[in-house]
């Protein structure tokens, strides 16, 4: 079996005036990949594409060797934390987290145990019976994280998963994420605006600008100068 988890083959997508350029990228199994880029550069579009959100793209996206659109949605085994969370507004926080297990017809006891465990990890045990409409931004974000993690998916796509959290909470979540990754050996792509976060968590870092993947580097080489000056500026390596 191949060790490539996610493969983009000359992938291109057009949305309105925005072009996601031909992107080729291989992400290995168990790799943690950070995606950096200015706001509006196409990070979310790229993650959504990997999840099989859009149909009319060029090139191909393979998940574990199969083209993403050839796998039925419910069998893609992706965990996705959306930038705006995408919680189910008619379910409590607890029901939101439990949703994936329920769909897998796990028994009631297993579900409630798992939900408590994850809620504990993410410090949201006290709001399990509230509805997403009534909780705080950070609480919503952690709910989305819990909902994605509970299935221990092969691939985790995280769109700025810690953006609404304070430093203390963030630190503890970093630790949990690393633990989970160690346990389940999943592939993770995450978007962040925080260079330290990228270096701390990721194996490799990709930098995207105006829809094009400008560079992919090992995390330790993140701050080495780039060919493109826009990228150097973006990383604070050079004034324009």
């Amino acid at each position, binding site marked *: 079996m191949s060790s490539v988890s996610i493969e983009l083959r000359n992938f291109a997508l057009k949305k309105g005036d925005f072009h996601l350029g031909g992107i080729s990228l291989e992400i290995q199994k168990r790799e943690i990949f950070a995606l950096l880029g200015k706001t509006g550069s196409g990070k979310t579009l790229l993650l959504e594409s990997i*999840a099989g*959100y859009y149909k009319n793209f060029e090139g191909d996206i393979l998940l574990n060797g199969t083209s993403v659109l050839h796998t039925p*949605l*419910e069998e*893609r085994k*992706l965990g*996705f934390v*959306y930038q705006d969370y*995408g919680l*189910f*507004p*008619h379910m409590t926080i607890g029901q939101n987290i439990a*949703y*994936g297990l329920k*769909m*897998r017809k796990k028994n009631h006891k297993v579900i409630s145990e798992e939900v408590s465990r994850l809620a504990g990890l993410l410090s949201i045990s006290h709001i399990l019976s*509230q*509805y997403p*409409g*009534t909780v705080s931004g950070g609480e919503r974000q952690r709910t989305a994280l819990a*909902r994605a993690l509970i*299935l221990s998916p092969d691939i985790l796509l995280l769109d700025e998963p810690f953006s609404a959290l304070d430093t203390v909470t963030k630190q503890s979540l970093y630790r949990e994420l690393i633990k989970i990754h160690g346990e389940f050996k999943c592939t993770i792509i995450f978007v962040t605006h925080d260079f330290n976060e990228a270096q701390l968590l990721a194996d490799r870092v990709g930098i995207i600008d105006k829809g094009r993947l400008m560079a992919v580097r090992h995390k330790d080489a993140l701050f080495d100068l780039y060919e493109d000056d826009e990228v150097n500026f973006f990383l604070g390596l050079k004034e324009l």
Partner: protein
Amino acid sequence: MKRKSTLNLFDITAIIIAAAIAFFIISALLTIVLGGAPYLKKALLSDEIRHAILLSIYTASVSTVICVILAVPAAYALTRTSLPFKKTLQIIIELPLSLPYLVLGLCLLIVFSSDFGRALKDLGLKVVFDKNGIIMAQIFVNLPFAVHLMRAAIDLVDARLEFIAGSLGASRLERFTTITLPLCLSSVLMMVILVWSRALGEFGATLMLVGVTRMKTETLPASIYLNISTGDNGMAMAAAIIILIIAAVSLTITTVLRKYTGIKSRISEVVL
């Protein structure tokens, strides 16, 4: 300060309009209540009216259940599946909305008098001149309407949440039952009460398809019609009062139920 008065003016106008409508409706309904009240006891004691009450509630309930069972998947098919010519199908299904009930009844009479209707009758499903016909007429009158309301409700649901549910492992059926349907629960409830109300009052199509045989196919509206025909407006109004009571009870129940269908948010308590 200028704005403050604008505020009041608009609100006050709206409130006055609502109150005026309610007042006019109350006055209009009062004519019936006053006209029928002296006969209400007699009506309630009459075997015929009692039979009509039960028949009305029975047929309206059965036809409402069938409407919902058919309208929900049909609306799903018209919004979320890859069915071709969705818009055309939808327009076809909604066409009967503007036909007079008399015509709808005639349609049904012709259809159920055809070979198809005969075959059905041989299978034991008698429609013409039968209780089943009342149910059939109510379904035919209400289904286009129910499909329309359901479709509009499903259209408003954010399809993205269904995508998310799917990626969490939900099959299409599960996505529909756990996300789409609950998210338009209040619309479903509204649809049910409207369909039931209309079924309760339906008469035009029924008249043509099943006639009115006393103690057999006599619903409350039929009873009203017969009483008006014999000049018994008092008894007719008494029957109308009974319909009003049934309707008021069911409206109150759904109004209470609706309270629990809303999506909780911080906003519900906000000062506007």
